[in-house]
């Protein structure tokens, strides 16, 4: 057992335990934030130390390859941003600060393990570590809405886990192994003519698609999204929308690329299924978002649409899995850009809703005057989510759609770009409320009060906004990183 490769995960686990213990003894809960960040930094340093280690394995269950390293750093970064932007929010609950931070760290642990897992059981267990932590976090406010969202998320999540597990069982039954590489070898031997003799394999793959679809909020497995987004604590929504989604895509990429990349007829099949799911996701997400008055619900539907764009990348992968690196690296690049923009947007929303106690878009009126910099950050992040230059979202879409066009998915790209136009409509409604809509006279006095934001939140806002602009204007470094991370994936 090459446990040295698990140092980042062990660091996270130790920090989570330490946070719970320290919580018992200290009064100033700010310590917990500092402690969590230190733990994340240590895990990050350990990850960086393995940066060139590429391709070592722990007992065939866990692999440390470029892909896993990229995702580990991404998840650690996301967790750090979420914890920093929570500092303005945790005041809402009097107790359980330690548990809150520990659960975020444990969820992160699940994500980092999951990005390395090369075996179905390990993969499932890490997914459950992630999911259970997030179910608990969703209900943390303990008000009716938050509890409802937690219960809803858990029930549907349990069903999706069952579906996933059943799919894994079928695939195990068909191939006789839970190793992804073993599955790949077994699947490879199936001739396209004999596929109808193996309905179990197809059923298993279909169930995997459904199970993963739930995690990334793909249509038609997205029904939990709006309620959960509305009810859960805002930093957790940010975590969910970015972290869980990225984890889901890490899973999809790892499993489908490693196990089902060949034979070609099979990858074309699931590629086509993903193309259809992507189309549905973009249309359902964008059209439903148009009428939303609550910004968290709106971002919920937007995240469904964003998952749709990402699935365009997965479909590209299915069309040409082995020849093109561009499909894989484009998904990674998109996830990176999306994480920046969405975390920035949620950080701004936390600051605003803390002050005005509302998530309604109409209450954002006059925000441009009250908090110009904050509003500017939110505006830049929303523009990135639309996919307009000079923000990162544009480059991400350009790169992703470029891959799709190269692999014969022009029709899907045209649907996607037209969907971006629809999305501009509702994202700009938020922008309009902040900068254009006049404040009604009744709220005149309230509308002059400044929006306070802690130093930690400001750091998050500044880093995400500048990051969005940097990646949008000079994307080369991140693109190369994504290419590097896409190079080794199988094992």
């Amino acid at each position, binding site marked *: 057992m090459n446990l040295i490769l698990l140092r980042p995960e062990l660091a996270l686990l130790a920090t989570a335990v330490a946070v719970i213990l320290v919580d018992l003894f200290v009064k100033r809960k700010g310590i917990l934030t500092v402690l969590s960040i230190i733990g994340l930094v240590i895990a990050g340093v350990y990850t960086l130390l393995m940066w060139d280690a590429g391709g070592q394995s722990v007992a065939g269950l866990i692999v440390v390859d470029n892909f896993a390293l990229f995702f580990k750093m991404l998840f650690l970064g996301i967790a750090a941003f979420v914890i920093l932007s929570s500092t303005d929010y945790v005041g809402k609950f009097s107790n359980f600060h330690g548990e809150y931070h520990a659960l975020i760290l444990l969820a992160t642990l699940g994500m980092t393990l999951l990005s390395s897992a090369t075996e179905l059981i390990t993969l499932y267990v890490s997914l459950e570590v992630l999911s259970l932590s997030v179910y608990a976090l969703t209900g943390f406010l303990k008000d009716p809405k938050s509890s409802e969202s937690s219960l809803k998320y858990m029930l549907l999540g349990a069903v999706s886990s069952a579906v996933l597990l059943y799919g894994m069982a079928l695939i195990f039954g068909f191939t006789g192994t839970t190793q992804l590489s073993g599955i790949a070898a077994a699947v490879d031997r199936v001739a396209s003519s004999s596929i109808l003799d193996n309905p179990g394999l197809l059923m298993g793959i279909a169930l995997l698609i459904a199970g993963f679809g739930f995690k990334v909020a793909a249509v038609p497995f997205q029904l939990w999204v709006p309620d959960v987004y509305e009810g859960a604590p805002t930093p957790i929504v940010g975590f969910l929308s970015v972290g869980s989604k990225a984890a889901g895509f890490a899973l999809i990429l790892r499993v489908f690329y490693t196990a089902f990349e060949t034979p070609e007829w099979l990858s074309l099949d699931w590629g086509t299924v993903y193309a259809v799911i992507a189309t549905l996701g973009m249309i359902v997400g964008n059209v439903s978002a148009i009428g939303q008055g609550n910004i968290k619900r709106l971002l919920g539907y937007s995240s469904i649409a964003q998952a749709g764009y990402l699935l365009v990348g997965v479909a590209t992968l299915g069309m040409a899995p082995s020849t093109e690196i561009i499909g894989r690296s484009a998904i990674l690049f998109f996830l990176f850009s999306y994480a920046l923009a969405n975390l920035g947007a949620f950080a701004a929303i936390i600051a605003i809703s803390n002050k005005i106690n509302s998530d309604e878009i109409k209450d954002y009126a006059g925000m441009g005057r009250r908090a110009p910099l904050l509003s500017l950050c939110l505006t830049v992040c929303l523009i990135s989510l639309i996919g*307009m230059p000079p923000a990162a979202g544009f480059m991400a879409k350009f790169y992703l759609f470029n891959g799709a*066009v190269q692999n014969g998915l022009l029709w899907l790209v045209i649907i996607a770009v037209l969907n971006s136009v629809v999305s501009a409509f509702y994202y700009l409604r938020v922008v309009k409320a902040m900068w254009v809509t006049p404040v009604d006279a009744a709220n005149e006095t309230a509308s002059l009060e400044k929006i306070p934001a802690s130093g930690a939140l400001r750091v998050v806002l500044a880093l995400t906004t500048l990051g969005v602009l940097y990646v949008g204007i000079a994307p*080369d470094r991140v693109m190369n990183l994504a290419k590097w991370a896409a190079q080794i994936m199988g094992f």
Partner: protein
Amino acid sequence: MNFNYLSAIIFLPMLGAAVIAFVPGLKRNGVRALAFLFTLASLALAITVFVLFDQHVPGMQFEESASWIPAISANYHLGVDGLSMPLMVLTAFLGFMVVLISWKEEVRVREHFAWLLLLEASILGVFCSLDLLLFFIFWEIEVIPMYFLISVWGAGRKEYSSIKYVIYTLFGSAFMLAGILTVYFTTGSLNMIDLAKTGVAVYASAIPVTAMFFLLFIGFAVKLPVFPLHTWLPDAHTDAPTAGSVMLAGALIKMGGYGMIRVCLSLFPDVARQYSVLLITLAVIGIVYGAAVTLRQTDLKRMIAYSSVSHMGVVLLGIFALGEVSVTGAALQMVSHGLLTGLLFAMAGFTMHSAHERDLRKLGGLARQMPITAVVFSIAGLGSLGLPLTSGFVAEFVTLSGSFSSTVFSGIHIFVIVAAIAVVLAAGYILWMLQRVFYGPPQEQFAHAHDADAMERVYMFSFVVLIILIGVYPSLLANIIRMGIAPLVPPI
């Protein structure tokens, strides 16, 4: 010549916008002074480029190139030729003028000037970019400033008009993005100059070139605008603030015509020829329909807006008549229309603010209170209807005669004759408008109206001088443009 003129021209206004937006404690005067200085510097450099430009050399000058995103072979590549240089100078000129025009702005001054400067920078970027991705990025950046200019400082149904503008523009650019991706997929290059040398048709591709052409064309057609994609234009022009209308009508919609020549024509010459009947039909419909609708308008700004639809139809006609003369005429028409309509909107805005009225049925007799305005407005109007000795005459004459002698398909003469008749309608609506606004008995309720002050006279006369200069001495521009057009127009 190591100095990067074009980068400086583009990024000075952008820098100005950032300074105005972020430097704390700026007051109204400081903001205006900064906007004035940054746009003036940009204009000065643009004029320098005009003077240094060698009009006997075809192809690109003042080129700058640097590696930008090697992963997708995109470069930071700028340059101007005889086609883009005049449009670039026009934009810098209008960018400076709109600072003067909005000198008296009092609402959210910092944001107003910051957006104006960012808008100018993005349009300049479009005219100077030689890399398709860079071109597209500048093309898209323009949307946000324009959205804010209309929705915050506009009038009437400003929120409706601004979002309509955004949705139409993004709709067009969605297709354009798909078109750029197909071109990139087919050729592996984003370099507009390299691509123009061979055209896209020589590359084998799974995607038909016709599809690529029309994906790109739709993007440009929304902006120009081409009938039936024009309906955003009257709303946006009418409800935008004066400075916004001037930029919109003067420089922004020229991006459409420029893109058609630079991309559609030079990359897909065969498709352009194949579909010229269709495109010229659309152009003539636009000319006739635009003119007819203009006649019926009762709102001063809306009237000028609709006349743009007609005038841009002339541009489309000239481009897809595919003759060297006709395309040169189309480019001249873009510059001339930029000056004339820019001035018309400036004058309309000024008249409106002075008389507090923009309904043509209620206005009247303003020549008494505003003699200078009346004269300048009349010159702009006469230029717009194509009176000799103004730039409007030169541009329309060259375009129509060039199209008439084009051999792109037999029977084009009939189309041109119909278009020429419609151009005569312009005389009708312009003269009628001038008569309704300025002549007739002076009216009691406009007694408070005042004439232009010194600042306003400066910008009015700057426009007039250029309009007459080009009208009297057209070869000043025509030679430059023709040298730029020649390599781009496919031989027939």
